[in-house]
């Protein structure tokens, strides 16, 4: 049960009567008695909440930055009207718009309420409880009960870098040519034979095939297809650091974790590679496999990727590079492009990845992509005061370490993409296109 403000107000008004009455003690007793009786009567006459039935409907998935409407049907099978307030409690970062709504369900009827969620971060957001407070006809007291009506909304990564996709697809089309290329070159493979038409390069005539037929036949070539791309996401401690300004979500100025920027880049790369005809697999790893997608069809790739990425959070442990390489090697039997999304942290790299890198880079093409911190770039440009110059020196030292580690990686034959948060996705896509054009996949 619960009391309302009216009960307190009534008691306060009774105080005035007590002040003026000749027998104040009796009036106090009488007021207490009357109030108790009224509250009891109100509780008895309030609509029953115990028998209420609930049902949810609505969206199961929503992109971060967008809103989802979740319906809640309240069914009142009891003989009395249920009138009062209802609270549909979600986790705070689900961003439920209204905390409490007024409820009025007549006897043996049902009403549908809508809760609008605007999640502020990625992951699974759950409905915690539905609490109904049914107020009596006098408005003095209410019956209250909390129900568990489960529902989960998976908040997907927003994939903001998809705006870069059309430009990269255009580059890709240039690359493979809607019209088959006639010149054999790097990154092309034999496509088909067709009849010679005026204008074709005479050097591409396949004389042996022409001899078999009465016609002149030319060979056509197309870019490599059906290569394998394995995207590996490092979810260790370095991925928890926040950089830049969060493009969506609640607290934007505190930045976005490197993990989320990396996911954005991974999604653009996956979308591009799938359109280019390559097979894309995904692996999230710190000290164990956190998520993986393998063998997804081209049409389902993106949806299964965002689904796998959504619940991943950065673990505050040092990533196990040896375990990661072992996991990659066990999954990639044929030569493939391993895209490693991690941070170019000198100490972590030297102790973790560098010793085990040769085993990986000898069998696969490795591409390391890292999100640089714009704040460090800003600090490095600081001049004028001693404080700014000391900060600039610290920033330059970090950048020097990153350059160092980049040079070491390149010596191992590893491609490195190190770009600011907003640029990392297109830079990674460009690096992939460059590799594809060069036929190094």
């Amino acid at each position: 049960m619960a009391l309302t403000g009216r009960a307190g107000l009534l008691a306060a008004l009774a105080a005035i009567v007590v002040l003026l009455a000749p027998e104040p003690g009796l009036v106090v007793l009488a007021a207490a008695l009357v109030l108790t009786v009224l509250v009891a009567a109100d509780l008895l006459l309030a609509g029953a909440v115990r028998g209420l039935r609930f049902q949810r409907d609505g969206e199961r998935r929503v992109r971060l930055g967008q809103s989802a409407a979740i319906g809640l049907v309240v069914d009142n099978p009891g003989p009395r009207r249920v009138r009062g307030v209802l609270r549909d409690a979600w986790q705070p970062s689900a961003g439920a718009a209204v905390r409490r709504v007024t409820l009025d369900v007549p006897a043996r009827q049902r009403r549908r309420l809508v809760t609008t969620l605007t999640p502020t971060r990625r992951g699974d957001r759950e409905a915690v409880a539905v609490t109904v407070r049914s107020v009596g006809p006098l408005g003095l007291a209410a019956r209250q009960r909390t129900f568990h009506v489960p529902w989960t909304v998976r908040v997907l990564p927003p994939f903001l870098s998809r705006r870069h996709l059309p430009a990269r697809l255009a580059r890709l089309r240039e690359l493979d040519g809607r019209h088959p290329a006639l010149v054999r070159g790097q990154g092309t493979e034999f496509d088909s034979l067709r009849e010679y038409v005026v204008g074709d390069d005479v050097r591409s005539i396949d004389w042996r095939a022409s001899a078999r037929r009465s016609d002149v036949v030319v060979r056509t070539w197309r870019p490599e297809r059906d290569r394998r791309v394995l995207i590996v996401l490092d979810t260790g401690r370095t991925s928890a650091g926040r950089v830049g300004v969060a493009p969506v979500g609640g607290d934007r100025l505190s930045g976005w974790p490197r993990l989320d920027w990396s996911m954005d880049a991974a999604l653009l790369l996956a979308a591009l590679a799938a359109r280019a005809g390559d097979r894309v697999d995904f692996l999230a790893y710190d000290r164990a496999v956190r998520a993986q997608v393998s063998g997804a069809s081209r049409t389902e790739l993106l949806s299964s990727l965002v689904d796998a990425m959504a619940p991943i959070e950065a673990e505050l442990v040092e990533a196990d590079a040896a375990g990661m390489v072992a996991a990659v090697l066990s999954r990639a039997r044929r030569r493939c492009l391993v895209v490693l999304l991690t941070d170019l942290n000198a100490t972590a790299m030297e102790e973790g990845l560098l010793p085990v890198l040769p085993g990986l880079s000898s069998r696969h093409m490795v591409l390391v992509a890292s999100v640089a911190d714009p704040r460090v770039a800003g600090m490095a440009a600081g001049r004028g005061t001693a404080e700014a110059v000391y900060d600039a020196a610290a920033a330059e030292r970090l950048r020097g370490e990153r350059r160092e580690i980049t040079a070491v990686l390149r010596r191992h034959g590893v491609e490195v993409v190190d770009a600011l948060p907003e640029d990392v996705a297109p830079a990674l896509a460009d690096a992939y296109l460059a590799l594809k054009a060069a036929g190094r996949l």
Partner: protein
Amino acid sequence: MTAATAPAKARSRGRQTAWAALLVVLVLVTAVLPLLLTGGRSGGRSLDPDDTSLNGSAALARLLEAHGVEVTRVETPGAAVAAAGPHTLLLVTEASFLDRAAAGRVSAAFGDRLIVGSVPYLDVLAPGVRRQGPVRARSRAPECTLREAVRAGDAYTGGMAFTGPQGATGCYPAGDGHALVRYTADGHTVTVLGDASFMTNLRLAEDGNAALALNLAGARQKLVWLAEPDDPAEAGGPRDPGDPDDPGEGTDGQARSLGDLIPRGVKWAVLQLAVAVALAALWRGRRLGPVVAERLPVVVRAAETVEGRGRLYRSRRARDRAALALRAAAADRLAPRLGLPRTATAEEVAVAAAARTGRDPEPVLTLLCGPPPGDDTALVTLAAHLDTLERQVRDS
């Protein structure tokens, strides 16, 4: 701050000023109002032998002591009676605090009495003396044979005109009677004056006021001065509440506690209000469902380590390391522009840069691989010079 939000800020600042002004006014009003309501009592106790304000009588007391009169200041009628003896003069002024019973005890005390001003219970203190109506207080001539008055001459008297009993002496005629009346009863000399102004520090120096006061108050070797007490309730002494003779202007209220004065209903109303507050607390305290907890990810800026390192450099004044980092970064950026491999040393970069820009090689060499700067200013200058060199190489 943008222009659009500037007026809003100014408005909020204006509102703040208004609130502050209101607060100041409120404080002033609460400070000044009680003073105005209490009538601006300028402090001091009137007709007190220890008081040096205009209303006090310290001057007279000191004069009396100089003439060898022993002045005993008492506050309560009981103390006055105790101090009185056959050779004392008891001075009762309008500032003395008396009720009827106390006046009776005082009138029964040994010694002479000098009653000055509008003292209550005159019928008890000076039986036989009757008031003849108020008169204006002013300088008057004695016009009588009383030695004390004749010697003093004109004095500031008046206030009330009296007529004495049979055989009484009247001086300073005023209205239908005299402003000073003296008579003798039971061996005590009782002197009554209608106004006490002539005894105050303010008027003592006028006319013959001082002489009159000294003559009257210094008549005996010992003067018992019944002065205004600190706490009037104490001065009244233990009292019998059932005394029917106690007419009491407000003396009845003194006997009761504050609790007796509050109507009975108020206590019960307070109890009822407590019930109301308890109900309101129950209303506000009942939560609509459970508190929802959530495990949130850590919020840590990736640049924090770099900022920490910068502060460490600063606190240790690590100019050598800072200069090293800045020079290495500049050399790394210069090397590819000068067509040198990444592995080129700072000296090679400096020589190449000097050759490219046409500058003297010596200062460029010092800039890129010289000794660490001696102070913070030199470090700031070094950073600026490195920037200049990079720009020159870029533009060349």
